[in-house]
């Protein structure tokens, strides 16, 4: 039997929902979309504990418990891919997370709007070129006949081939990622900077604060909470977007598999080239997702402890 307090709470909630019915109606399509396309397909995760049967499909395949996870434990290729995922993601976070903040602050310092817009447009543009096209351009530029090597050789140095060199492939990933995304990622910080009351800058200027002091005491506190939220989001997506499948898949080749094969590319290659069990591959993907979730919770907790508002 439900207590009187519980009934009252439900009634109160219902009354509130009725009162804001139009808002709820507006959010309904989003909820339906998430339910249909984000949550309903999650039943596919069960495949991690099954061996795939073509006749039974995902639901009808037989359960095999933790067999796939036990196999993964001894799979040297998965270990390499997992290690690469962590290294590449963390390095991208370290290198590429602060860059858009610096860029936004730098652009914000432009007193002339035309120059600001020009640089912003130029730097944002690469984001709209797909990795497939970019990989073609990069490969072309770095080939022996490409502009980079022609320039290097004209200076009397040996030609380079970072696309097939284990030592330079990862730096190439970081640099090309930064080149493509730094402009786009800085937009949100620019918006946050634009939201700061200009009177604060004026007052600080009158009080004798130089550019650096204004940046430190006005601009940075103004965007700190945005930085915190974006950091949590980045950490949550670290293992998937950090080790971007599209970027690596389109740029790598077998000589650099040992330093570049991340979990997503490993799953793809094993599924479609070697023909591994779909269940095994789902288990590999699930491990990655669970670790992403743990990282997200950790990042959120740390940010909250630092006094900022978390994601939840």
């Amino acid at each position: 039997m439900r207590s009187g307090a519980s009934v009252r709470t439900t009634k109160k909630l219902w009354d509130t929902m009725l009162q804001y019915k139009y808002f709820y109606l507006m959010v309904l399509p989003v909820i339906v979309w998430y339910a249909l396309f984000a949550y309903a397909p999650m039943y596919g995760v069960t495949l991690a504990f099954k061996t795939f049967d073509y006749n039974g499909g995902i639901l009808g395949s037989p359960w095999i418990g933790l067999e796939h996870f036990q196999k993964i434990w001894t799979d040297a290729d998965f270990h390499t891919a997992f290690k690469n995922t962590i290294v590449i993601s963390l390095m991208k976070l370290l290198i590429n997370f602060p860059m858009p903040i610096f860029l936004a602050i730098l652009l914000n310092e432009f007193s002339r709007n035309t120059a600001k817009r020009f640089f912003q447009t130029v730097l944002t543009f690469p984001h709209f070129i797909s990795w497939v096209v970019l990989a073609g351009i990069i490969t072309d530029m770095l080939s022996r006949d490409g502009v980079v090597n022609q320039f290097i050789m004209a200076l009397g140095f040996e030609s380079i081939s970072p696309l097939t060199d284990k030592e330079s492939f990862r730096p190439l990933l970081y640099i090309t990622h930064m080149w493509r995304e730094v402009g786009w990622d800085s937009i949100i910080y620019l918006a946050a900077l634009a939201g700061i009351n200009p009177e604060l800058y004026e007052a600080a200027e009158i009080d004798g604060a130089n550019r650096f002091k204004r940046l430190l005491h006005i601009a940075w506190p103004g965007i700190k909470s945005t930085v915190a939220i974006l950091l949590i989001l980045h950490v949550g997506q670290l293992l998937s977007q950090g080790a971007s499948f599209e970027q690596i898949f389109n740029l790598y080749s077998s000589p650099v598999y040992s330093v570049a094969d991340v979990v997503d590319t490993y799953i793809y290659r094993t599924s479609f080239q070697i023909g591994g069990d779909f269940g095994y591959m789902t288990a590999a993907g699930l491990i990655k997702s669970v670790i992403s979730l743990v990282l997200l919770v950790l990042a959120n907790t740390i940010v909250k402890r630092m006094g900022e508002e978390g994601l939840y």
Partner: protein
Amino acid sequence: MKGFKRFGFIMVGLALMTGLLSACSGNGNEKSSESENAAATNSGTGGEENPYKDPMQISVAFWDVEAEVAKIENDPIVQDILKKFNITIKPVNTTWDDYGQKIQMWAASGQLPDVFAIDAIGTQYQRKWVDQGVVAPLPDLTNYPNLAKYFEAPDIAGLAVDGKQYTIPRRMFPSTDWSALDRVVYYRWDLAQEAGITKEPETWEEFKVMLDAIVKADPEGKRITGLTSSQVKMLGGLFWLYGNPVATSDGSGADFKWIKEDGKFIPAVFSKTALPALQNMKDMYDKNLIDPDIALTSPEIAYDKFASGKSAAMLSGGGFINLDANIQRKRWANSYPDKEISETVKVLKPLIGPDGERHHAIFKTYWSESYFSGKIDPKKLDRILALFDYVLSPEGKTLLTYGIEGVDYKVEGDKKIMLETKALNEKYPAISFLRDLVAYETADRYDLSNPSISDVGLREEAVEYIDWILNNTKVPEYDIRLTYMSTPTKDSFTVFDHDDLLNVMLSKEPVEQAWQKIVDGYKSKGLDKMIEEVNTKAKEQGIE
């Protein structure tokens, strides 16, 4: 009077209509009876009811099939053949980049088309398709005599699972001798001569000297590189020929061949003779005789490089057919309008290796295969098999290769003389598709009267080349049954030797060390266990 006039018009109109209808129906009947007769003749059921009277639509997944099917409307030969079997084709497109993924996804979601093309023999997923009924077994082939004959070749017959065939391999050659055509090296003989080379290379040493001379002399001033390749997958087909020819594979990862070494069967890739072959390749790379960008190559890039004089030699699949189609017809005239390709470019004859023998690559006699959905209606399967049987029949082959007798060619004695001067593929744009859907039959194109290689100079050279191969090279011994053998570890074991070759080539470590790391990697994936299983099973089956 007015009424009479109207009546007259109506009567004339009716008479015209009747004439027109009867003319139409007369044509239709004739065609229909022709078709019935042909179909009846083909099916061997003369005098019985036309077995193809009900129209049938079949869905076909084949590379770029949408574009190929669109060409049928301009191809009277293919139209007639399809009419004969009362078939219309519903294209389900795949491309060279996505066919593997698409077909595996369709198989997983139960959406496979009636017939589809893929190279899956020996892979884990193909075994599952057979075990779980994803693909249909072929029925008794008595009614399809040409198809039945097709399955007599040992490496095709050996594909049966529990006595049943599940696939129709797309045959290329009548025997593995012809595999020599599937990994050939084209080289610039004109540039070699300009660089001071007077003799065509016969040994690996001479080949390397020739490449070195061209790269160093760079006669056209284009900063020419050494050997390039149309795909990384091709690498094993050349470099293993230095003393380890049985290791050559088609790149699928599942077709590795076995040899007996120290009293035990082992995959040829892991033979003692692998190291000298790898060392030879590494030396070539280190001495700039191999394109430094070879790891990132693709067919289009390689053809462009070779045809524009930026590469001294090119490793390619498809032999003279690709030399004709992708270099001669598409590119050569732009770069060298004044040079005859057949006099400028030569195809490297298999080189004499360290053992004093001339070896060429050895693959299966087919590449890729047709499967039929496990859900296919037996009547539909019967109709498709009848079509396949016709394409493989002497009549079908002749029609799809030479066109129509009296129109496109005439017969003089035992020879066919082409009457049509333009390429048949232009006149009948879908004949290649229909032929390739069933079997490539590449060997047929190495005949002087066959117009598939359009450049007559190249055609003559091609015919001479294969004759030379058949007379001067020998295929080393190996037992294909071991390649097809199924054991628990072997079923999930792949050997991408081209990746391994590339890794050794680009490694900064000494060859021996780099190779040992690769072998250790395979050992961690169960190499020793697989060898043990295969040897035990071979003993049980009496394979020595």
